[in-house]
């Protein structure tokens, strides 16, 4: 599974019958630092993710499993919306990578 940011969506009227009713999102894979990492990918949405959200997605044959017993031709599917993620930095302090949730500077109020 990989982290990604949802940057857009795709509309396709003519498509495989098993894709009907499934939303298609454009994902930009990201590194743990939040920076872009690699090419964009179009993924199916199984969790109701929206543009601007950080998500994680699965690649390969398993991408069809969230839609069981349906069998859409999927090679990438968003399977979770990320609230936050934490990384251990070199000086061992925890850092929250989602800037919106990052704790405020403790010095600020003093």
């Amino acid at each position, binding site marked *: 599974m990989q982290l990604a*940011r949802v*940057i*857009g*969506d*795709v*509309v*396709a*009227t*003519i*498509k*495989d*019958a*098993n*894709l009907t009713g499934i939303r*298609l999102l*454009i994902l*930009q894979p990201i590194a743990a630092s939040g920076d872009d990492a690699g*090419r*964009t*990918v*179009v*993924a*199916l949405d199984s969790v109701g993710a929206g*543009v*601007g959200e950080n998500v994680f997605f699965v*690649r*390969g*044959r398993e*991408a*069809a499993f969230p839609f069981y017993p349906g*069998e*859409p*031709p*999927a*090679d*990438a599917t968003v399977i979770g919306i990320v609230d936050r993620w934490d990384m251990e930095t070199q000086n061992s302090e925890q850092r929250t990578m989602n800037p919106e949730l990052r704790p405020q500077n403790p010095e600020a109020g003093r």
Partner: protein
Amino acid sequence: MILARIVGTVVATRKDDRLVSNKLMIARPVDPHGKVEGSYLVAVDTVDAGFGETVLIVSGSSARMASGLKDCPVDAAIVGIVDTIQVRDGK
């Protein structure tokens, strides 16, 4: 899935029996803004896509899940014709 633009067709008389009567297209992967990236690939067309159209290509073993491709020796299938792409990358 990746976005790609159809840039050509492939004709092959001698091929695997399970590929008979499938349309083979040459596609060029593009980014969401339409800029080409990467090299060409040959994909089986399941939606009657045409030259110049932007399509959705599913690759890997999932390509066999496209309609009519069960048990076919295929690793890229065109499964949708793109109408619109909306990108709102706020970062």
